[in-house]
């Protein structure tokens, strides 16, 4: 068996070596098909899908959380985005006459189809987290807010939303990291992004390139995760309250207690 070029240890060493060579060659990072351009394309695709999902999902999830009804339904309906494989959805969308494979500005070939598929994929964590975040605000807190004479709107903006914010941000963070990694499927319909490097690499038996592309996607996902974590800490009201009290503010919002 030792004559086989693909015996695991040797093959693994070769792949790591090829991947390193691919990633350290500056030529692979530059140009119109270089890693940098593809990375920016994919980031744009992910952020747009996230923004669209947030614009649709957040108001709905927060409002249903506020009125304390329909959350179960909303969560389950948006979970369709999790149940249907994103790629299957994309495959169906590109066969339609619209949006089909219409090129959409910087989002490339089949740009609208890709954005729709990714937006539906981003919805479940956003809707679930935001809805649960608002619903989980303790009744006692809401009671006392009402007792202080707050209207429904005041209750939502001054009490429920600040307390739900860490979960809302956590949902956005989860959605962003998921969408970022999944956006590589755009390559399967000749769209933009780092998926192109991965599919090209494996199609040409160029493992260094294929794995190199995957490594870049993973590293960026990790960075996005860290940034999301930082945003989540900033959004935490008890942390904000603590820092305010450290700075000598006398009245700490009692709702965060």
């Amino acid at each position, binding site marked *: *068996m030792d*004559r*086989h*070029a*693909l015996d695991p240890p040797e093959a693994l060493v070769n792949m790591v070596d090829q991947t390193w060579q691919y990633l350290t060659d500056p030529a692979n990072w530059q140009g119109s098909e270089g890693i940098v351009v593809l990375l920016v394309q994919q980031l744009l695709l992910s952020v747009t899908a996230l923004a669209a999902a947030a614009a649709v999902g957040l108001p709905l999830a927060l409002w249903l959380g506020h009125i304390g009804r329909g959350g179960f339904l909303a969560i389950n309906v948006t979970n369709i985005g999790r149940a249907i494989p994103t790629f299957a959805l994309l495959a169906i969308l*590109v*066969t339609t006459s619209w949006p089909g*494979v219409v090129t959409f500005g910087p989002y490339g*070939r089949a740009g609208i189809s890709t954005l729709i598929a990714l937006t539906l994929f981003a919805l479940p964590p956003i809707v679930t987290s935001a809805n649960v975040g608002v619903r989980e605000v303790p009744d006692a807190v809401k009671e006392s807010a009402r007792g202080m004479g707050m209207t429904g709107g005041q209750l939502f903006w001054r009490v429920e939303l600040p307390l739900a914010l860490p979960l809302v941000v956590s949902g956005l963070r989860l959605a962003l990291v998921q969408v970022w990694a999944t956006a590589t499927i755009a*390559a399967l*319909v*000749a769209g933009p992004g780092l998926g*192109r490097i991965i*599919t*090209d690499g*494996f*199609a*040409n*038996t*160029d493992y260094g*390139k294929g794995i190199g592309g995957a490594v870049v996607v993973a590293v960026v996902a990790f960075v996005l995760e860290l940034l999301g974590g930082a945003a989540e800490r900033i959004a935490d009201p008890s942390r904000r309250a603590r820092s305010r009290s450290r700075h000598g503010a006398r009245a700490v919002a009692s709702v965060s207690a």
Partner: protein
Amino acid sequence: MRKGRLLAAAMIAGALFLAGCGGSSGDSGAGKSQHGTVNISGQNFAEAQIMAQIYATVLRANGYTPSIKLVDTRDVYMQQFPGSVDVVPEYVSGIVDFLITQDKGPNAKLPTSADPNTVISQGKSYLDKQGITLLDPSEATDHNAFFVTDKYSKDHNVTKLSDLKGKSVVLAAASDCKDRYDCAVGLEQTYGITITKILPLGFASQQTYDSVKSNESQLGETSTTDATLSHNNLFLLDDDKDAQPSQNLVPAVSTDFLNANPEVATILNKVMAAMTTRDLTELNFDVTVNRQSPAVVAQNWVQSAR
């Protein structure tokens, strides 16, 4: 892995021993049904499904127990071939190019001859190194081919690839097309076609057909045995300058397995000698258009070929 093979060898030896005992009681046919298992693998598309089923049919008729496991890409089954895979329905340049690329890297120079035996002799050292033997190549061949719509063919008076000389086209093709001589490179160098853009939509995939039909691209990549084109008002262009390297069908067999079962060469060579490109196209048609099962299609062909 070695342990697994020892175990498998022990099991086969046991089976043979039992078969030998059975045979001694008189019926020579009983011994014939105990040659042991043949693991067939290959890529999972209609033509490979059909060929795998044809191999399985004739091997079963000769007393082997075939087991078929098809996977998406050559990279996957080549990890286990030879080893836990014994036989693969292959294409001459397909496997030779793969082994050379694996050994020499993605920029290696690949054979371009249209003669299968030239390509096999050029790839011999790589095949030997891997422990794979190619049996006799069939006359049936399935190489890359390119199509336009019937309308484009009429409007621009194009029936062969050289008619596209000097024209600018968008090409819908497999992701590996860009740097391949049997794809974009050959079209540009040998035929003088200007390819303005390559859309990596897959080899003979629905996306590629749709892209050409909608005139997003003008030229699409498929194979010489594509049975669906005329149904879709698509027109296959003739490779009139022989830019395609040999992609004759050929059985690839593990050398160790072949040494242990030399009669497998005779069995499979006989099948490959009977196979033609026309037969292959018809079999593909039965599977991809008429939606028949590859196993049924294969059995019918083997029966008619006998």
